[in-house]
Structure formats: structure tokens, C-alpha cells
């Protein structure tokens, strides 16, 4: 296929869409799939067949529409451009919607999501521009929304250097957590001299509670492939790997289909868009280890080895897959590439703060009214996210802290709610931007318990290669366990801090080096909670059970209470 044919395909796709009078978009992303989307789609298709409305009314299974906490989600589009969003749809309701909308009437208002809901209006969608709009399994849908146009432009109008330069000018930084300037990384790989080079898309996403990358891969797989191809052209690679976490079966299936479809149309393969550029993409499935998201472990895993990290330097840009220079980027980073080339790097750079440009996707979860996947401009304050996009705290909850960066990040307390969300500000607060997990906690969360939860995660996910992480996380967890069960003594916080410093500085990879972050951040902002646990055997949030308080510290009544609490727990 050449560029003219791509344009024709785009026009045909748009025309075909225009012929449908009413389109039912059903969210087919994992949260909605598990809350009943397939039954809704079936009900709609049945209804259309029964009423003989094929051709005029269409059902499209799309990616994520958000808000995920209010699924299953359906959006109805009319040819004139009117759109209605429905939440918590049931198959019965789907039939009602079909009947009403086919007759140009509105559906039940109590299920309508107002278009002026802050959740929708406060988002800025770049990377998720197609999410919930296109059928991820239909390449024509993507092309109809200018898909692969950026690749065409890059291949035919720009030199590789210009592409790298455009990405550098956009100010895009790595969305996998580190925030390394993407343009700079591309330049490094482009300049490296080697027989072969590779591009890797990191879709391993191991943060508990985060699902940005999964959603992106499920909702708009072609955007990632297009970004990878552009990256391949820019750095001089002819082969790409996309590494998907093993649990993400839906994402893997859609990516696989997307790769096949793109190859069939000549958008990937031997002569991409009729140019001399050759680029193939292979899918690799992980086995669900958090550490396999770390770039060197991920590359070992792609090469068929054990997912152990290796010391850097050498960095992947110098020596990566099979010792060749390798560009590794997070899937969200690569998802931003095509929109940047289409709208211009300046437009992307116009969003955000001085050092953090563009938009960032967050998985907003926890005690907020409207939870779900959101894409917001960098520099938005945490308050705007929680109170605006998220619609405020859940019923009866008041804000205590928000955790960003998952097990590698930290909590941000109430007094810093007005901090702009950008790489530098979050780091200064002792947290990190991370890959986009954002957990909002209310007063019922115990911060020591939260730190313990993440440490438990890390000790389980430590690969075992180096001792400060392998045994250090276990020792830190033991101390936290003692604090929450009441057997800690004075001095344990200090020992905990020593272990934190060791893990942070002496670990081989980022997992061990960042494992102390949740502890350090909670110690920084909620040290009094630690003291309450140790000195008074009191958990201010009422979470911890103190089942191991030494007998001599207890009065008789307390001892009896502890005894009954303990037997209750053992009974569970």
C-alpha cells in the first residue's frame, strides 16, 4: 500500500461510518467485559436482527470509554453528531435503548452520564483520543481516524534525524516511570553504530491497581504499532518487540490481530507504505513478574532467559537485545508519538509545565466517586484530579493521602493537594510520577499498613538476584509487621530507615532501589502514626489489630480483648 491508497482507505472508512444512522458503541475493555459487556452486545445485535435494522443501526465493540467504575458503558451516536453516554447498562436496558434511539428518542435519563461531567470535560485526550471511539480489532476504523498518516509523513517527508528532533521538541518524557526524555533516547539509539537495532515496547505493567497500559493496548493497539514503526524508522531498527504481561490476554489477542492486519495492508513488513523501510513486530508474553517490566530484565526475558535485571551501564541504548543497541519505551510513550507528529510537537509542548509536557494517563482508583482511566494535562493539581475529574471523595470519606507510583512511589498528604502533577514536583515530595497508578485514600486507611502492603508486594516480586532487595525487603516487612501487630520496640523505626537507605543505594535494579519509597514517604508525612502504633498500640485509622502486644504492656481487660481479637483472626 502507498500513501494515496491509505488516504482512499481512510475516506472509505469515513464514508461507511456516515452511512450508519445510529451507532451503539459498547465498551469492550476489561472492566466492562467483566461486568457484562458481551451480553449487552449480544442483546443489541439480536434486537437489530429482529427489528430488521441491519445496515442502519450498528454495534461497535470499542476500547475504554470511562469512567470504569460505572460500567458497563454504552455510548449512542446519531448521524447528526448527537451523542449520549449511558452507565450501568443491562441487557434489558440495551433493548430499550435500541428501540428508543432507533426511533430518535432518548433513553432512560437516570442512566445518562451528563456530557458536562467533570470526568469528561477535565480530561485532555491525546493518547486516548481513539479509546472508546474505534473498534480496536478493525484497522479501517483506526485508518478512518487518520491512523498511520503520521507514519506516512515520517517515511516520506522526514529524515530519521528530523523525527527524533520532533520528538525531542515535543518535550515527551518516558511514561514508564523514569521520565527520561524520549527524544534524547531516540537520538542516542539513532547515533549508535551497529549491525542491527531493535525497538521494544514495554507493556508489562506490573503496578498493583494500575491499568493504563492494558487499556491503551486493548483500546487502540494500532496506535502503539504506528509509534513503534515510527521509532524504528527514526533509530534505524528493522525489528520491534512488544512485551505484554501474561495476564493481559485481551490486549495480546488484539495486538496480535492488529499486527497481522497491518502486515496484510503493507503498513508493517518488508516495504512499509511503499518505502524502502522494513519493519516487523513480534509479540512476547511475560509470565507476570513485576521485575520483568524493568528494561534489562525484560530484554533477558525476550531473549528467552530468566527475567533477571543486569547492572547498567551498559544501557539498552548501547547494548540491549543480542548486544545490539535497543530502544525501549513504555507503550504510553509510544502511543504519544503518532499524535505528536500529526498535531505537531509544538501543540504537545504547549500542554503541561516547563519540564513536563503533554498529557499523562492515570488509573484513578480508591475512595473517589468517579474512578477510572483518565488522561489529564501535566501540571494539573492533585486537587483538580481528586475533586474535579474524580468527582470528589466517596460518600463519608475525607481525603487523607494519594499514592502515586505504586510500590515504587509514595503518598502525598492533604497539605500538598495543590501541588502540580509533574515529574519534578512529585519527586520533591518524596513520591514519583510512576507509570500512572493513582490511589486515593480516606481516613480509614492506615499509612503503616499501606507501607506494609507495598513492602509485601516487593518482597514477593524481588527477583532474588541481589541481597539488599532479596533479604532487605523481608527484614523491612518484618519490622512493619511488628509495628502493626504491637510487638515493635523503640529503635525499630531507625533500623527500618537504615535498611531503606541500604536498599535504595545498594540494590541492583530499580525494584529494590525504590522499594523503600512507600515507607520513607509515610515516615515523612505520618511519622506520628508510626509512633502511635509503637508507643500506644493504637492505630489512628482503626485498621491494625495489635495481636502481638507483649503481655506485660497490657492491663487485664486489654489482654482479654487481645485474646479474643487473636482467636477471631485465627478463626478466619
Amino acid at each position, binding site marked *: 500500500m502507498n500513501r494515496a491508497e491509505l488516504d482512499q482507505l481512510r475516506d472509505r472508512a469515513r464514508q461507511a461510518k456516515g452511512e450508519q444512522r445510529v451507532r451503539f458503541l459498547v465498551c469492550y475493555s476489561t472492566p466492562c467485559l467483566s461486568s457484562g459487556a458481551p451480553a449487552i452486545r449480544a442483546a443489541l445485535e439480536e434486537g437489530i436482527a429482529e427489528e430488521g435494522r441491519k445496515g442502519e443501526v450498528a454495534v461497535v465493540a470499542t476500547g475504554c470509554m470511562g469512567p470504569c467504575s460505572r460500567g458497563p458503558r454504552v455510548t449512542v451516536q446519531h448521524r447528526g453528531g448527537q451523542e449520549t453516554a449511558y452507565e450501568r447498562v443491562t441487557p434489558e436496558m440495551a433493548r430499550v435503548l435500541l428501540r428508543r434511539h432507533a426511533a430518535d428518542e432518548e433513553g432512560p435519563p437516570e442512566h445518562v452520564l451528563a456530557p458536562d461531567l467533570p470526568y469528561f470535560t477535565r480530561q485532555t485526550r491525546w493518547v486516548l483520543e481513539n479509546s472508546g471511539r474505534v473498534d480496536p480489532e478493525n484497522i479501517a476504523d483506526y485508518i478512518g481516524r487518520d491512523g498511520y498518516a503520521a507514519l506516512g509523513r515520517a517515511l516520506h517527508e522526514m529524515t530519521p534525524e528530523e523525527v527524533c528532533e520532533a520528538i525531542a521538541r515535543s518535550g515527551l518524557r518516558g511514561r514508564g516511570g523514569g521520565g527520561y526524555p524520549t527524544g534524547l533516547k531516540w537520538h542516542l539509539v539513532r547515533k549508535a553504530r551497529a549491525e542491527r537495532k531493535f525497538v521494544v515496547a514495554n507493556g508489562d505493567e506490573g503496578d498493583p491497581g494500575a491499568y493504563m497500559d492494558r487499556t491503551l493496548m486493548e483500546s487502540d493497539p494500532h496506535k502503539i504499532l504506528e509509534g513503534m514503526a515510527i521509532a524504528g524508522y527514526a533509530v534505524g531498527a528493522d525489528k520491534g518487540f512488544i512485551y505484554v504481561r501474561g495476564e493481559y490476554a485481551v490486549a495480546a489477542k488484539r495486538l496480535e490481530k492488529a499486527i497481522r492486519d497491518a502486515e496484510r495492508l503493507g503498513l508493517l513488513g518488508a516495504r512499509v507504505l511503499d518505502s524502502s523501510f522494513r519493519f516487523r513486530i513480534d509479540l512476547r508474553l511475560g509470565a507476570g513478574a513485576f521485575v520483568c517490566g524493568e528494561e534489562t530484565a525484560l530484554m533477558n526475558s525476550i531473549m528467552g532467559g*530468566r527475567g533477571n535485571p543486569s547492572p547498567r551501564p551498559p544501557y539498552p541504548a548501547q547494548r540491549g537485545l543480542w548486544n545490539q543497541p535497543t530502544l525501549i519505551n513504555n507503550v504510553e510513550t509510544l502511543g504519544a508519538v503518532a499524535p505528536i507528529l500529526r498535531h505537531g510537537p509544538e501543540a504537545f509542548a504547549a500542554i503541561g509545565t516547563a519540564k513536563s509536557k503533554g498529557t499523562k494517563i492515570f488509573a484513578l482508583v480508591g475512595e473517589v466517586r468517579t474512578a477510572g482511566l483518565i488522561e489529564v494535562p501535566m501540571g494539573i493539581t492533585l486537587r483538580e484530579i481528586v475533586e474535579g475529574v474524580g468527582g470528589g471523595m466517596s460518600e463519608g470519606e475525607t481525603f487523607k493521602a494519594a499514592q502515586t507510583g505504586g510500590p515504587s512511589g509514595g503518598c502525598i498528604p492533604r497539605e500538598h493537594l495543590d501541588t502540580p502533577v509533574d515529574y519534578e514536583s512529585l519527586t520533591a515530595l518524596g513520591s514519583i510520577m510512576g507509570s500512572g497508578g493513582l490511589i486515593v485514600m480516606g481516613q480509614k486507611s492506615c499509612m503503616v499498613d499501606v507501607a506494609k502492603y507495598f513492602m509485601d508486594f516487593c*518482597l514477593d516480586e524481588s*527477583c*532474588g*538476584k541481589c*541481597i539488599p532487595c532479596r*533479604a532487605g525487603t523481608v527484614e523491612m516487612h518484618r519490622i512493619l509487621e511488628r509495628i502493626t501487630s504491637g510487638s515493635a520496640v523503640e529503635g525499630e523505626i531507625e533500623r527500618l530507615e537504615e535498611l531503606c537507605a*541500604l536498599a535504595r543505594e*545498594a540494590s541492583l535494579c530499580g525494584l529494590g532501589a525504590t522499594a523503600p519509597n512507600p515507607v520513607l514517604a509515610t515516615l515523612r508525612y505520618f511519622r506520628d502514626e508510626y509512633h502511635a502504633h509503637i508507643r500506644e498500640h493504637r492505630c489512628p485509622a482503626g485498621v491494625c489489630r495489635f495481636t502481638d502486644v507483649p503481655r506485660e504492656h497490657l492491663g487485664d481487660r486489654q489482654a482479654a480483648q487481645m485474646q479474643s481479637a487473636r482467636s477471631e483472626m485465627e478463626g478466619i
Partner: protein
Amino acid sequence: MSVITLTIDGHLVSGRAGQSVLEVSRDAGIEIPTLCWLEGLSPWGGCRLCVVELKGEQRLFTSCTTVAAEGMHVVTRSARLENYRRMLVELLLAERNHYCAVCVVDGHCELQSMAARLGVDHVRFDYLNPPLPMDISHDLFGLDHNRCILCTRCVRVCDEVEGAHTWDVRGRGTTERVVIDLDRPWKESTSCTRCGKCVQVCPVGALFHKGVTVGEMVKDNSFLMDIIKRRRSAQPFVERRRS
């Protein structure tokens, strides 16, 4: 071969391009503590004892994996590094069951002498006391997981020098263990050549000859560099024959 000059602990030293900081340092007579590193095997970077400070860098670097560069300023000894090294050894001692008094390598153990050298006279962390098995199925050698520090010297020597790749690791975190073939008893291994290299390079009492008792197992890994040197000198001939 180009020569590079760098500063280590205030001394101006020179080395060959491509050498690691550890190698240059050792050649200059400056000893850096190591456990997983062994001359002749590929560097691993797991024990972290050889971490050093580099001028202009915040984080620490393992000297075994860092290539020495012209003009580098390296610090191998500082209060911070010594404190961390002591803690690392404490963690190794706390992680499994290191009861020197009943160990086959008591008195000849690299972990034990490292603890003594770094002044580790007690362990401040919880002993984890994991219940670990032994494998004494083989007629010549024994494996005691209780003493293993997961340095992977056995894995590397078997793969890189003997070429058998009998050893590997399984599991992760503190549940990680060295395994033989795909985790079978040693005597059932179909790849093991009974060469015993793993036993000799193991720094602790995890691998031993059967029949020895407390303190009797003395290891000798001098064979390793003999082999490596002979290989290196044969290399040009091998290459000529290939081409």
C-alpha cells in the same frame, strides 16, 4: 592496547581499556571486597559488596561490572560504603542458616572471613531461619541450601567453563534456590559431568565433597585461571583455523 589512567582512593593508577574498575583496582593492589565475583567468570553484580563511589555520580556502582574509564575518580572506602558492606554481610548471615560451628567449611569460608574482615561481630536483623533441604543423593558431592548465598558462581562455572549448564536458579526473592537440571536430585542429573568445578568455586559450605566433616572442606579454585589462561592463549589458533 590503549592505556587508561584513573584515580582510585587518591592514587593515580593505570589499566587497560576495557578492564573493570575492580580489575584495575586489584592490579594496583587495592582490594575491594567481593563474594559473587570470581576471577575467570563473568561478573554477576549480585552480592553488592564491591560497590564504589564515582565522583560526579549520586548512585553507587558495582566495580565488577563498571568499565574503567579515563579520568575516573573512584572511592572504594568510605564510612558509607563500609556501613553498607557490613549490612550486606549481616543480611546474608540472617537470610539462611549459617551455623559456622557445625559447617564443613568452618575456617575456610569466604563469607565467614568476609564478616571478620568487615568487622561484623553481630547481626542486627531477624534470622529468617528458613526450613531448607539438603541434596546428598550424589555419590561424590553434597548440596546444602542452608548455606547457599545465591552467588551463582556454581551456575556460571558450569555454564561458562565446563559447558554443561547443569546448574540454574529457580524461584524468586528469598524463595530462590539453585537447582540441578530442571530441579532434580543431583544423582539423577543427565547433564552433570561430575567434574566438581562447582564445589571448588562455591565460596561457602553449600557445595562440598561427601565424607568431610566440620572444617575439613578446603576449596581450591586455582584450576579456573589455569583453564582460562590456556584458553586465551589458544584463541588465536582457533580463530585462524575457523577462517
